[in-house]
């Protein structure tokens, strides 16, 4: 794949936070098959977006049925998830948030693990060996300095490794955003700051996070480039990330990418978006749906048909069924695990507490029996 980047000019978000100007979105960007991707790659972009959407909907259903806990859905942002994940090279490091289950899975976290996480199981925190993904961060923007440190470590050790860190529009208002980008610019670190501007931080529109027209332009304050891309266009996202990674790998420092996107659903399953958004706004974004629009293109290019669609959906369904079964078939959580992995060696005080808890559990089970 090439390093060519579609540099979308930086445009402003509307004052109601409803996203970029309409003319920002390419209406029919590529009439013929793009030369910089193989058919397999193009398929995989589409397939992974479908997978993530199905995954997401499945989790929402599970949540409603009480089979998992709170979940942060990603529907609408699939092009961001897939474009970023697939542009990363083997060994590149991902630092995600709670909304990046998609990217995390594409970078090697098992589906079952993600399910376990949202089901409140410590096993959901396990990261397989060889998978360079950080635990998802809940505290907004606090992962950005971690990414900077990870990238710094790579530079010091002369590893050919770029770190990609994900965050939302809201995260740009936190001090840690500033401190991280400042370090990255100053030390010229191999890191890509990937902002999914989905227009809202829970209920707060992007226009109430900042007085600037865009988030991308904030990179100016740190001495490196900011780019804005159509986050509904998986190829645009891919190219922007791919380019930023290549640049970072060449030792030319960090990039801030702002991808314009939208979450169709609630912030999390505890949120009610009708409190702060209109149906009309949602509809506008749905018309630029990353999956539908890419399906249309693939079909235009003669690369996709109903048979492929069917086959893939069956595969996805099977994967998900299996993952849910394996989550639900897992042995029950063990209370004593509370004490594991906090220190390399459990200190005496905690050993005593662990023993006390085990007694408590035995007592409870004894009573229950």
């Amino acid at each position, binding site marked *: 794949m090439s390093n060519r980047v579609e540099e979308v000019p930086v445009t402003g978000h509307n004052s109601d936070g409803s996203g970029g100007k309409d003319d920002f979105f390419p209406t029919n960007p590529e009439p013929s098959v793009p030369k910089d991707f193989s058919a397999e790659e193009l398929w995989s972009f589409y397939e992974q977006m479908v997978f993530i959407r199905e995954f997401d909907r499945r989790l929402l259903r599970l949540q409603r049925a009480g089979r998992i*806990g*709170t979940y942060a859905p990603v529907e609408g942002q699939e092009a961001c998830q897939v474009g970023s994940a697939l542009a990363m090279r083997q060994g590149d490091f991902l630092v995600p948030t*709670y909304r990046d289950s998609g990217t995390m899975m594409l970078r090697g976290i098992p589906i079952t693990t993600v399910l376990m*996480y949202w*089901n*409140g*199981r*410590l096993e*959901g*925190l396990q990261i397989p060996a060889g998978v360079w993904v950080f635990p998802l961060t*809940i*505290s*907004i*923007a*606090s992962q950005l300095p971690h990414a900077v440190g990870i990238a710094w470590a790579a530079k010091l050790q002369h590893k050919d490794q770029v770190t990609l860190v994900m965050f939302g529009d*809201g*995260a740009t*208002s*936190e*001090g*840690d955003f500033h401190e991280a980008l400042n370090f990255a610019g100053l030390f010229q670190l191999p890191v890509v700051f990937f902002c999914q501007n989905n227009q809202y*931080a*829970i*209920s*707060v529109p992007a226009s*109430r*996070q*900042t007085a600037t027209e865009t988030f991308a332009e904030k990179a100016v304050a740190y001495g490196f480039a900011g780019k804005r891309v159509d986050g509904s266009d998986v190829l645009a996202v891919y190219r922007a990330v791919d380019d930023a990674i290549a640049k970072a790998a060449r030792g030319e420092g960090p990039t801030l990418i702002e991808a314009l996107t939208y979450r169709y659903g609630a912030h999390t399953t*505890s*949120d009610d978006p009708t*409190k*702060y958004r209109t149906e009309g706004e949602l509809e506008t974004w749905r018309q630029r749906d990353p999956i539908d629009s890419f399906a249309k293109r693939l079909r235009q290019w003669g690369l996709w048909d109903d048979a492929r669609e069917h086959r893939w959906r069956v595969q996805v369904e099977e994967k998900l069924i299996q993952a849910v079964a394996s989550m639900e078939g897992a042995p029950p*959580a063990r*209370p004593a*695990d*509370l*004490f594991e992995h*906090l220190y390399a060696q459990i200190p005496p*005080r*905690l050993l005593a*507490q*662990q023993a006390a*808890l085990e007694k*408590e*559990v035995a*007592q*409870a089970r004894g*009573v229950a029996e």
Partner: protein
Amino acid sequence: MSQLTLVQAVQDALRCALAADEHIVLLGEDVGRNGGVFRATEGLQEQFGAERVVDTPLSESGILGASVGLAANGMRPVPEIQFLGFIYPGFQQVVAHIARMRWRSQGRYSLPLVVRAPFGGRIRAPEMHSESTETYFIHTPGLTVVVPSNPYDAKGLLLASIESPDPVIFLEPMRIYRAFRTEVPEEYYTLPLGKAAVVKEGKDVTVVAWGTLVRETLEVIRQLEREQGWSIELLDLRTLSPWDEEAVLNSVRKTGRAVVVQESVLQLGLAAEIAARVGEECLLDLEAPVVRVSSWDVPPPLFQLEDWHAPTAQRIENGIGRVMTF
């Protein structure tokens, strides 16, 4: 009088306060249009306008730091931190400024402000949403730390906190935001800060609790009284700093036994200070060591195990049993 939940009582108090004093402003993430992620500020922006109920950027240090300036220059800000675990990026503003500005200006700039934050665990929330780290604030001189345990108290204590000339960290026990209702008068009223409430008198042992665990502890107590015939006194601390030493020490002098129940981890949770003070002041009255019932010294886990982290009914029962049978 109406029957309100705790979160409704909070909302009611905020409405009373906004109506009573035009210098009061609420600010925080999602407090305006959305009415707060727990609905604690629902309807308030419509009623009082977007200048007085302000959606801020996602910026805790900004929110808390701006509140310092607002309070010093004539306003009475009531910032909301969405969950206590998200106060950490603004921690410097709390401990280096909010706690010290009156002192640092030798009385010139007092800070009448109330930082509201839901806290505590066991609502099946994701990580960082279940913090019981009141210790950080109790340990910091200059702060007043308040925790209500029921809707009636929530309204009266919140209004008192807002009236206070000094900064208050007002921690709202999320787990009981909607767990039950009590009568809550419609009119404006306050409850004194710094005073514990005697939830239930008793002669054999003093149990001290606050927030969520008051009600859960009361249930255990009632059962123990029935089953064991013990007479158990329950104090609801209500203000964690400065806490009502007089009430606690007098009760322990009377009963000779003390149990403190907290959702904080054990090490340097408030129970440690209470145990230390009781030891200092009542050693000769004590029939048994002060017992601390608390969470273990590990982080609040993902939710499947959280009920084993916080004090279970059984752990509370065991704790009281231990002190009674020493």
